[in-house]
């Protein structure tokens, strides 16, 4: 088992923890936290393959991670704004209780 395998297993573990959080928690913010963990697992995969891949001078993995971090930051901002707006309308942030389309 070389270091690339260890990084990929760590990434798989991080993804699974994020998936478990997103699937089981009831609070909408914690679902978003699980999604963030899954995005970070993908970033770790990109960096591991960039480091141990055949052509690190091309910097493809690094560029992908930079853009992924920017998109994830935008996603977190919009997601939290949506959660705050839903809380104002429905007085709850439990994802089970937000089950109607009509505000």
């Amino acid at each position, binding site marked *: *088992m*070389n*270091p*690339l*395998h260890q*990084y*990929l*297993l760590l990434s*798989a*573990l991080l*993804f*699974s*923890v994020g998936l*478990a959080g997103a*699937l*089981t*928690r*009831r*609070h909408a*913010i*914690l679902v*978003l*936290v699980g999604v*963030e963990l899954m995005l*970070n697992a993908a970033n*770790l995969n990109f*960096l*591991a393959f960039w*480091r*141990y*891949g*055949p052509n*690190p*001078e091309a*910097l493809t993995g*690094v*560029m992908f*991670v*930079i*853009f992924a*971090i*920017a998109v*994830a*930051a*935008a*996603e*977190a*901002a*919009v997601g*939290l*704004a*949506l*959660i*705050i*707006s839903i*809380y*104002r309308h429905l007085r709850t*942030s*439990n994802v*089970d209780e937000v089950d109607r389309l009509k505000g």
Partner: protein
Amino acid sequence: MCLRNLVHSALCLAVSLVGLALVYLGLGAEFIGWIQILVYVGAVSILIVFAILLTRGAEAPPGRVTVAPWSGLSVALAVFITLAWTVIKSKVLAGFAGNSPGGYTLAVKEIGGKLVTEYVLPLQVMGLLLTAALIGAVIIALHERKGWK
């Protein structure tokens, strides 16, 4: 097993993201590691704490904090086992074993050069996306008053 206090959950997220930034530093991507600390620990975690305080406060609602925990956990466990089995058994990854990471250090100057030459169009699109997302977030979260349009 689950933390009931939401602020504790957000702080644990910050700690795990710092750990991931250390992993990035160990991989030789120092710039990405510091970006990770700045963006995730400095901005996203604080944003999550603010959102927690703006919605309900730290205490969890009475009752269970999870929904259908065993089915969710078993799905996550199945995903982990599948991924780990794939990683360990992969023949493509065995081809990477000969590549050693030594001999190449990442310079920030190189990243900057690539960003303004080869990746300049994605950089502009990213700036547009961030602006649109932040304006959208402010408009969505804006407090609505009566008679205000």
